[in-house]
């Protein structure tokens, strides 16, 4: 198979996943640009893209591009806004107060993580990567990623202990920049 044909096949198979990745991090306005740029880089360096499992490589590239975009525009990423909006929209309609409190606590925990720790959790949740793949995307070893997840669990436990506290007493952490 020629490079063009195999690249085209990879593009068609993974474009949507990369588009979604970008959509979650930078929002709808820039997602398509990030996705297209990711594949542009992939075509420029196609001999370095793992042919058997290109998706983590593509996510790494998309991650670098989104971080550059966020830094360049001096803005925050879209994760906090989109989750907060989603929580408000669905939470008020469907959930009782205890569930809402649990969600807010969990999302507060997510927001309190460092960039790399949070990305690790998101990659495993939204992109469905396993620990080894997620570690590769954020640029650390599997052991380091496992240690970071342990740290996340500790933080989660700490925050969820406070769950009995009334929701109205908490500060809305989701609207705050996490960058």
């Amino acid at each position, binding site marked *: 198979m*020629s*490079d*063009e*044909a195999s*690249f*085209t096949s990879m*593009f*068609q198979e993974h*474009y*949507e996943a990369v*588009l*979604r*990745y970008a*959509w*979650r991090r930078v929002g*709808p306005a820039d*997602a*398509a640009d990030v*996705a*297209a740029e990711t*594949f*542009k880089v992939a*075509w*420029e*360096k*196609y*001999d370095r893209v793992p042919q058997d499992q290109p998706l983590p490589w593509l996510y790494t590239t998309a991650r670098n591009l989104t971080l550059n975009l966020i830094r360049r525009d001096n803005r925050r990423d*879209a*994760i906090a806004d*989109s*989750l907060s909006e*989603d*929580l408000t929209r*669905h939470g008020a309609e469907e959930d009782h107060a205890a569930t809402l409190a*649990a*969600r807010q606590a*969990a*999302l507060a*925990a*997510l927001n309190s993580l460092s960039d790399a720790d949070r990305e690790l*959790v*998101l990659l*495993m*949740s*939204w992109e469905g990567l396993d620990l080894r793949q997620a570690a590769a995307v954020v640029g650390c070893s599997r052991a380091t990623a496992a240690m970071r*997840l342990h740290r*996340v*669990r500790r933080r*989660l*436990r700490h925050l*969820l202990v406070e769950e009995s506290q009334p929701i109205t007493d908490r500060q809305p952490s989701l609207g705050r920049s996490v960058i």
Partner: protein
Amino acid sequence: MTNDLKQLKSLLQAHDPASHVRADPVAMSAALDDIIGNTTRTPQMAKRRWLRRHLLTLIPVTAVLVAATVVLPIIMQPSDGGPLVLGPAKALAFARNGDYIDVRIVDPDADPRRYREDFAAHGLNVDLQIKPSSPSLVGTMLSVSSPGKVTILHQDGREIKDQYISDWIKIIGGTDCGNMWCQAGVSIPLNLRGPVVIIFGRAARPGERYEVAGDPTARGEALEGVDLANQTVAEVKRILRQRHVTIESYYEAPPEPSSRDLHGWNYNEHVLQPVSVPDTRYVHEAFGGHYKNSVSLVVAPWPTSRPR
């Protein structure tokens, strides 16, 4: 993994902001074509480079054609209307939007018969013409008109009328073609009395002449993001050489301070011979050339007071 982390993962999965996002085949096709057609790859071993060139001559892969083979039967995407549904010939996608129907091109390389078939299936008297275009215009709508009728330009659409009837064609925005007019799609009234001619841009095949050339500084074009205004011809030539862009022609700029376009300045009547253009002239603007990586320059002995 503890229950706390599982809970967080479940929560995130349930609140995935991109769960509804589907790739638009039109955008995919244009992006793929742009990447393969316009991106320079990192040099590899000489043998491998030769192999690639060799293959390119044997198999002129048109990315659009390949991409078009994997269209989805129903293309969901965020829009005001309903879901986009493929026409029977799978060349166009339609979405009902009140009294209108949104139309998007799925296969920009389809035979015109297939467009007619898809439009006819919705009872629409539309002649869709696809013109080879430069990268920023690929997959976009470039013109709406009707033979023998007047087309009135409005901000949100085109009104096509004669002394008896009037049809409103709405435009679907969301594209950026620099200083050119282009739109992502078109919304046609269900009771269209037509006929209407719509022109869309498609990717040019290798060596094919562009019938419609875009703004050369627009996204995806040879001079993307470059500002040439008020640079000398010598400076511009250096920039063009770096980007492997050639000069197709020179035009004389209209005299200032009169408006360059409103007074009917016809550039085709003001073509300059290259030998008559000194390197010290100022470039006022650049037009896209009719072949890949070519431009036409508008020049004058004075800098422009209205750089675009």
